[in-house]
């Protein structure tokens, strides 16, 4: 455009700018007229209306807390609901002398320093006309005593509010988690408006993980109040919307069978449907009553639970990390076949110990006199350690580590709960990062029988065997089957997600190990043959024993003399029916001794309950 090259013409340009300036002035007049028009509407037209509102600001806004969503098991059994409970509440702006009121209330009702501290904290963040709870869960006689004297206390109220309740008490506590009162830490994380009337929040487990589903939507009430702040009438209200209901994959009766099967032992059970990753039972023993936590547990009770040597508060199923012991052997066996480091019929002579070339140290078999000549099937059936020392030596740690990784070792399963740990899947890099040391051949050997650095959670254990049972497809295990959206009450199914898939090189490699695992239960020399009496279906399994402490080179491990605390953990992993797996179970009994005697019977009871009833 040659025209643009021409010299500036100040006259034309100044005319242009002036035109635009005038235009701006017109815009300004128009826009400011709009503002004035708006002010005219507010100050003249609607003056009466706003004047009324302002007069004494009579209209108060009250937050109505939503009712928490319910939790059901897979068959509709109620696992968590809400019950009315009486609360002593105080409206700050209606109380003239707060300290003396609090003092006088002590005559009628007890409250702890903890209650008082919490009350004072809420006082700071709530508006002065909101009612703040001082004591929750009043007993009937306390309600009666207070009600008679309530007229003497301006601004003190007794209100019935729905409170979380776990109708089955301690049952399934580690699967559910629990709610507790909102504390300073929670405050940073929640939306102040949504939680304006809410006093409780999910603290652990499902209750925490699905807080956003369970909580619901806050309601609002506009009320007219008199000069003293007493509510005269409700002007209008938008009611709160109840939180969404959860339908679990957990089978409450199965869970109960598992809990009862444990007796007084500590440990964990996880049962999974291997075809979709649904967790059928998730048990950590011992259990405790979550209702204690809902309204603030007393220090004494809490300390008791915390300091109990059985550690009931510890969720072993997700956070407990154990050496998997011999339950790893089917995986190594499969790894051996797939990589051709092991041949199906090749035999190893087991003399009760194994020695690395050029090393004096003896790696002992659990059976002192040895198993004699064993092939892979025998080695799995009888759980021969020497065979797997040798196999591990040939496989090498890199291959072992990556193969276990295919089945979910060393990574979180991504379960929909809180507190999950990922165990340890040792490898050369891991060890360098861990203590800066190189990997030693001897460590490969003990990893070969599931000891050493290797650690898994019971959930990982169950999920790995579930993946094995369906020939390598590993699902992301989950506890919630569907979310029931309120108020439409339509259920949204939680889809099963495949977390990983191991592609078998040869199907018959898998068949071979699978048959050996059936042999563990049904074979004449199987380590878990003790549970096969009267079995109406086929079970594939593997026992395991996890050493808690190391026995010196030439000492004997004697179950009788070892303190219970230091006794080995008993493990059992299994799936059934073997040819069409419907359930995969992992059991760990802490300090239970051997897997065959203690852990396997628990698994059998669970599988019986699931498959037969």
């Amino acid at each position: 455009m040659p025209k643009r090259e021409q010299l500036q013409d100040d006259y034309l340009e100044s005319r242009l700018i002036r035109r635009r300036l005038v235009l701006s002035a017109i815009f300004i007049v128009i826009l400011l007229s709009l503002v004035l028009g708006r002010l005219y509407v507010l100050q003249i037209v609607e003056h009466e209306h706003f004047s009324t509102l302002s007069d004494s600001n009579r209209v108060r806004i009250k937050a109505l807390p939503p009712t928490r969503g319910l939790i059901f098991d897979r068959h509709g059994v109620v696992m968590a609901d809400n019950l009315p409970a009486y609360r002593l509440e105080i409206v700050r702006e209606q109380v003239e002398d707060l300290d003396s009121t609090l003092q006088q209330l002590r005559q009628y009702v007890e409250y702890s320093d903890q209650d008082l501290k919490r009350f004072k904290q809420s006082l700071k963040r709530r508006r002065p006309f909101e009612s703040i709870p001082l004591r929750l869960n009043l007993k009937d006689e306390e309600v009666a005593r207070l009600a008679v004297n309530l007229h003497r206390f301006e601004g003190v109220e007794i209100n019935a509010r729905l409170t979380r309740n776990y109708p089955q008490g301690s049952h399934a506590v580690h699967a559910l988690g629990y709610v507790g009162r909102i504390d300073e830490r929670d405050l940073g994380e929640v939306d102040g408006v949504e939680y304006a009337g809410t006093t409780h929040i999910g603290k652990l487990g499902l209750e925490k993980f699905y807080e956003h589903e369970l909580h619901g939507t806050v309601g609002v009430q506009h009320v007219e109040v008199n000069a003293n702040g007493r509510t005269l009438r409700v002007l209008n209200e938008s009611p709160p919307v109840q939180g969404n209901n959860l339908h679990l994959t957990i089978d409450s009766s199965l869970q109960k069978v598992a809990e009862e099967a444990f007796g007084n032992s500590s440990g964990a059970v996880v049962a999974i449907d291997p075809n979709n990753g649904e967790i059928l039972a998730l048990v950590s023993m011992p259990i405790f009553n979550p209702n204690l936590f809902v309204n603030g547990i007393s220090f004494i009770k809490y300390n008791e639970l915390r300091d109990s040597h059985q550690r009931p508060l510890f969720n072993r199923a997700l956070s407990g990390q154990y050496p998997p012991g011999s339950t790893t052997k089917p995986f190594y066996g499969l790894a051996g076949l797939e990589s051709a480091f092991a041949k199906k019929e090749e035999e190893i002579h087991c003399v009760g110990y194994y020695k690395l070339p050029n090393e004096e140290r003896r790696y002992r078999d659990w059976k002192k006199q040895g198993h004699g000549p064993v092939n892979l099937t025998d080695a799995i059936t009888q759980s021969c350690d020497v065979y797997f020392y040798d196999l591990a030596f040939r496989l090498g740690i890199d291959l072992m580590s990556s193969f276990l990784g295919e089945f979910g070792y060393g990574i979180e399963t991504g379960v929909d709960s809180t507190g999950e740990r990922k165990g340890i899947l040792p490898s050369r890099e891991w060890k360098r990062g861990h203590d800066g040391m190189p990997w030693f051949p001897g460590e490969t050997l003990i990893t070969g029988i599931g000891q050493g650095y290797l650690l898994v959670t019971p959930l990982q254990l169950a999920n790995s065997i579930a993946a094995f049972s369906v020939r390598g497809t590993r699902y992301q295990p989950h506890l919630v089957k569907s979310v029931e959206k309120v108020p439409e009450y339509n259920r949204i199914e939680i889809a099963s997600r495949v977390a990983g898939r191991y592609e078998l090189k040869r199907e018959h490699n898998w068949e071979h190990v699978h048959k050996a695992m059936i042999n563990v239960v049904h074979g004449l020399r199987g380590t878990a043959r003790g549970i096969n009496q009267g079995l109406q279906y086929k079970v594939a399994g593997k026992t395991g024993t996890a050493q808690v402490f190391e026995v010196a080179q030439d000492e004997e491990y004697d179950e009788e003399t070892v303190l219970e605390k230091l006794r080995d953990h008993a493990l059992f992993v299994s799936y059934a029916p073997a040819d069409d797996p419907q359930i995969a179970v992992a059991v760990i009994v802490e300090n239970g001794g051997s897997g065959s005697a203690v852990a396997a019977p628990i698994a059998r009871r669970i599988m019986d309950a699931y498959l037969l009833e």
Partner: protein
Amino acid sequence: MNQALDSDTTSITRRVLDALRLDPVLLSLVIVLALFGSMVLYSASGSDQAVVIRQLTRIIFALLLLVAAANIPLRMIRKISIWLYLAGVAMLIAVMFYGEVGKGAQRWLNLGFIRFQPSEILKLAVPMIVATYIANRVLPVGLKELVVSSVLVAVPVLLIARQPDLGTAILVGSAGFFVLFLAGVRWRVMISLGVLLSLMAPLLWKFALHDYQRKRIATLLDPESDPLGSGYHIIQSKIAIGSGGVYGKGWLNGTQSQLDFIPERSTDFIFSVFGEEFGFFGSIVLILIYVAIIFRGLYIAANSTENFGRLLAGAFSLTFFVYLFVNTGMVAGMLPVVGVPLPLISYGGTSMVTLMIGFGLIMSIRSAKRFMV
């Protein structure tokens, strides 16, 4: 007209003002407004003298800067604009990494002896650099000039918006835009830009806005949807203004204001206090004072002898209008809540200083004309 006035006035004040190159009309309007504002602030702060004294100190300090700015020759303004701009952008980047956080946003830079918001500098620097760039070119501006200027404006605006400080971003962005508008960007270009922006609006809504900003816009459309949270501001503000009526409840007598119902009542929401205590009548007077200031600025722009002065004085005056419009619009519940103060009245030093320097520069533009003729 001014020369005519000059010749037959001999008063001392006049001579002093001339020597200091100040515009008596603009100066007196600004001072009246600032003093009037301090009075409102006294009421809004709950009769806190300390607050008012601090504000008066700021006004005096800012007026001194105004005088200084009025004495910078135009040539110099053009020269420093690039450096001011670069320094401002550099500090915005520094804020991103070293800035101090206040009220959830990272806006402040602490240089040890002084703590300030670099974004304020850009309110001056952006229109200055765009005006400098465009003033020497043939008007109306062509495509190349438009693109370069848009980049000059967009860089600081985006940096400020992500602090996040939507209010200041709007002010800086509109200051830059006004220079272009005055420089005669063609209507069809502006319309297509407008269409483009509104097409992009859903994307901006999704990606560029923070949660709280989305909430504020949603709240504007239906304040009753969230009466406990962000709607509370607007509801209480409307009650305050509406209950003021024709003549207001009287100075220091606003119940909404005095009883703490209005949040941020000495800063962004000070107009609600004003509306409650001085009523519709007071509001008209106040807005007329503002209009007088803006029109005086536009008048000076129109009478400037060179494009740079026309563009810069015009852009400053129009930005001042944006302050007023956004703030009153927000307080009256017409616009979403963004942090834009009521100019020269809201409590706080930073915007006061930049506004006054801006007026100083307008005065410098005014006197440039006479010294050149």
